[in-house]
């Protein structure tokens, strides 16, 4: 088992270390967006909590992983740092995402989970990327682990069997 990096709300990180693991706990309406580089075998993850950094541009400078629009470029930078400056073109990148749950809401105003997931897809699209695997929505929390060795994402939720994407 390699080194585990635990990411809190708004954190992001990358690892190219053999058997490294990126993990984040209890995603509610937050979304874990993960990028895997097929060539360098580097993997990254951001725990995104909100769709747009415009609500606090100054804070977004120091906490880019918190917002969908600033998290994607932050992930690219962290992957470059982990590989000594190498990041493959979009064709060699695989994106996975999960989380973005919503509480039941008849008026559909309290849907930050859904808006987070959409904002991430929009941000990815700017770079010619789209999620290969998407496990978002529902009304349950998710804990997520991404394994560098296989690129597999393991998801757990209280009262459910674990599943993988």
């Amino acid at each position, binding site marked *: 088992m390699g080194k585990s990096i635990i990411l809190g709300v708004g954190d992001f990180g990358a690892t190219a270390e053999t058997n490294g693991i990126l993990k984040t706990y209890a995603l509610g309406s937050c979304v874990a967006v993960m990028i895997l580089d097929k060539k360098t075998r580097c993997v990254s993850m951001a725990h995104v909590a909100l769709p747009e950094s415009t609500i606090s541009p100054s804070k977004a400078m120091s906490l880019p992983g918190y917002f969908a629009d600033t998290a994607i470029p932050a992930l690219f930078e962290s992957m470059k740092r982990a590989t000594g400056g190498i990041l493959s073109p979009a064709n060699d990148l695989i994106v996975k995402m999960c989380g973005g749950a919503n509480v039941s809401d008849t008026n559909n*105003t309290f849907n930050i989970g859904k808006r987070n997931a959409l904002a991430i897809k929009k941000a990815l699209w700017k770079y010619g990327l789209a999620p290969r695997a998407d496990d978002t929505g529902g009304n349950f929390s998710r804990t997520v682990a991404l394994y560098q060795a296989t690129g597999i994402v393991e998801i757990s939720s209280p009262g459910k069997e674990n599943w993988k994407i």
Partner: protein
Amino acid sequence: MLEDTIKKIEAQIEAIPVLSPVTSELLGIISEPNHSLHDVVAIVETDAVLTSLVLKTVNSAAYALERPIETVSDAILFLGDTIIAGLALRREKSGVATANLSGYLADADSNWAHALKTAIAARYFAKRFSGGKVREGVAYTAGILHDIGKSLISTLFTDDQFTSIKDTEFIDLEKEILGISHAEAGYMLAIKWKLPAVMCDVIRWHHEPSVAQDDSKVLTYIIHLADLTAMMSGSGTGIDTMRHTIDSNYSKYLSISDRDLELAFFEIQLEYNTTFNAIQASFESLKSYQSVEKNQ
């Protein structure tokens, strides 16, 4: 079956220690609109352990002070008095905000984290969006206490009851399985503890705020919103996390826009990170001290 459940809950309530006099007094003072810092300091200083917790919290690495704070009054000036209520409730022997919720598949840390984040969110909403109708200290205390019923019914669930969990409001599921919800069980304990009527009402109706009495309705909507905010931002209590319904009528009682709500999520999380780490450090330090003392 319901009678059996009620009997079991009543027996647990009997066994739970009542709130300590210091905590009860603090909660009373903080809920007074015109209380002074001096009133809070005077109560804290009668309690050596609480004094130590307050000083360890304010001087923890989380606040990174340039010079240490040495007096209770300076500490309370810096931290605000609502957090003192949080510290007092966190160390209560009853453990209602720090119990292991095995029936919910949640540990003690998750229970406390949820209580603390709900309290911080409730104070935030009360301060900015209640139009001065709800005092911050009352909102904070209600946030810590809102789920006290979970520790009462947690042990009554059996392992197999959630294997094929239905996609229903969790409060309804609790009633279906046990005949009583955590909100109703919490209300029974709140009555036993002689908490103020408004607090009892909030604990009872925080998932159905429209039913609360008129004079506690705004606070109940605040706790309703704060509870779900905590769950959405990653601080839930296991299996019921996100399995609740938002009553959108909160907008009738709290003038809060979607954008306000997003900013609230962000600012509450930042405050929570600092406060959680500071309180955790002070309790860890107290635990080490007590264990050294025990071994001497």
